[in-house]
């Protein structure tokens, strides 16, 4: 028997596979047994009621999807009255993704969401353009640190912080989140992108720009997970283009303690359970007793010389 469990801080997950925020909802229980998942992750919730972005909200591109759904939200009350009871019937822990336009609002929302039935707060500080000046908190180490510090003080629950891949300072941002008290990092959200329709000359998305997800971004986010996992001691949860068991393993080798599956579910609705089955088979074939042994197991002899090797390769 392969031990599939992984630990994220004080929380033990039955297996490392869970959905990515915004790509999961109750409808999926028609396709898979929800009790098989490592965790549930909700669509990001905001305090105020929101309608989301203008249509069209998605456009497909080579190996991926650009979305500008935004965050349509029915608010906190609806969540507490309807969504929370729904998930109470299942075994996997419930991760609630939240977002807010200011650090104070963010902290207040985290406090309101820290109710029985909620197991983890995932702070989506990476949603593009949601902060007042149009930059996400996670673009900079300083804004990351201040919002995470307030969030940390506001909730006794495990706090996962979801970072943006759009910053050039990712390791600094990761370190800031760790310092400020995050229990885990989710790396990462979508990559800001764009598409134009050649018939109409108009942007393909009502919001002009959107976030790219899917296989196309996997090598980029994998690199970011590797960088973050080398930088911080808290667990890193990998998220970006994971569609197959092989993708999930690649992320775990790079340092991810668990993985989130997003866009892949739109193409293969049973992607998550297929990946869990595949993890078992892979570990069996390779004689790996615990899937947790894969975490950070990349064999990387020259790990300290990366930069050097680039500038002055061995002659």
């Amino acid at each position, binding site marked *: 028997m392969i031990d599939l469990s992984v630990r994220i801080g004080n929380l033990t997950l039955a297996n490392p596979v869970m959905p990515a925020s915004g790509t999961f909802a109750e409808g999926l*229980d028609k396709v898979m047994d929800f009790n098989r998942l490592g965790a549930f992750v909700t669509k990001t919730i905001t305090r105020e009621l929101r309608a989301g972005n203008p249509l069209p909200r998605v456009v497909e591109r080579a190996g991926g999807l650009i*979305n500008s759904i935004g965050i349509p939200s029915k608010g906190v009350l609806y969540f507490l009255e*309807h969504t929370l009871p729904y998930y109470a019937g299942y075994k996997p822990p419930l991760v609630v993704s939240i977002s807010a336009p200011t650090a104070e609002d963010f902290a207040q929302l985290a406090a309101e969401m820290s109710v029985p039935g909620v197991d983890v707060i995932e702070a989506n500080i990476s949603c593009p353009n949601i902060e007042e000046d149009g930059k996400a908190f996670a673009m900079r180490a300083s804004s990351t640190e201040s919002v995470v510090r307030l969030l940390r003080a506001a909730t006794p629950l495990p706090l996962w912080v979801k970072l943006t891949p759009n910053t050039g300072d990712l390791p600094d941002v990761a370190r800031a989140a760790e310092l400020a008290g995050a229990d885990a990092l989710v790396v990462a959200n979508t990559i800001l992108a764009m598409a134009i329709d050649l018939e109409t000359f108009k942007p393909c998305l009502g919001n002009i720009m959107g976030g790219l997800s899917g296989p196309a971004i996997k090598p980029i986010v994998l690199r970011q997970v590797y960088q973050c996992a080398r930088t911080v001691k808290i667990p890193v949860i990998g998220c970006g283009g994971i569609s197959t068991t092989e993708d999930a393993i690649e992320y775990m080798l790079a340092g991810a303690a668990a993985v989130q599956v997003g866009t892949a579910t739109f193409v293969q609705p049973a992607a998550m359970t297929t990946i869990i089955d595949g993890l078992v088979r892979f570990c069996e074939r390779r004689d790996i007793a615990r899937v947790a042994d894969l975490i950070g197991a990349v064999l990387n002899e020259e790990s300290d010389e990366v930069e050097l090797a680039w500038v002055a390769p061995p002659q």
Partner: protein
Amino acid sequence: MTIEQTISQAGRATDSAAPWTPSVVGEIAEVISNDCVNAEYRHLVVRCGAVSASAQPGQFFQLLCPHSDGAQPFLRRPMSLYGADPVRGEVEFLYKIAGAGTRGLATLGAGDSVDIMGPLGAGFTLDPSLRHIVAIGRGAGLATLAPLAKAAKANGTRVTAIFSARRPELVLSVDLFTGQGADVIAVTDSEGTSGPAHIERILRGLIAENRCQAFYTCGSSRLLRVQQRLAREFEIPGQVAMEQQMACGIGLCFCCVRDFNVGGEIVSRRVCWDGPVFDMMEALP
């Protein structure tokens, strides 16, 4: 504006002792046939499992389209159920070649595999006490209405189908309706019979004869408006199957939202999850 996030369409009892079973599957189906129907449409029949074959009129599937000449559609493509046979384990689709995805579908031949996901969405409801209903569709909308004829017949409900198309040779699925004993009226642009005024005249006639106890419609907002007007005037119920660009097809992504008028309030709903069939009076054409 309000967003409707219906939590549990199916209302599954999570603490029941029964083991979980899927009611939507992604599966590899086998193509039985994939023939041209007219210059624009093809008819695809596939062999599939029991879950897929239990699809109901108005539901749809998401098809993973084969790659063709360099194009690689990333997302699945929504297609209405055109027919289902739970006994033989078959479902049918009627599709128009529109772009890369449907061009890929057109390359399929008997014996090939195609990845289908379904059945999806909420279909039509057919009150067995109705004695006579009207189905009005245009273009691919007829594909969506087709399975109604059979279901209505099983209920003993008579159907008058009004088919709108650009040209007579593009009128589709007449056989499917007449085969189930439906009356078919074809109207076309080229003959000048498809205008809303003419259709309204036909409908008023049917209403007068008590042959229109409910509207079932799909595929034309112009026709939807006519029906909404008459429905209000004569208090006739109706259902409409709507379309919207889709990604997931199962209520996860909120890309397929449309606005509906629910008792004067504008409500945003997911077409794939709350529909694709909606109360005709709530639809905004």
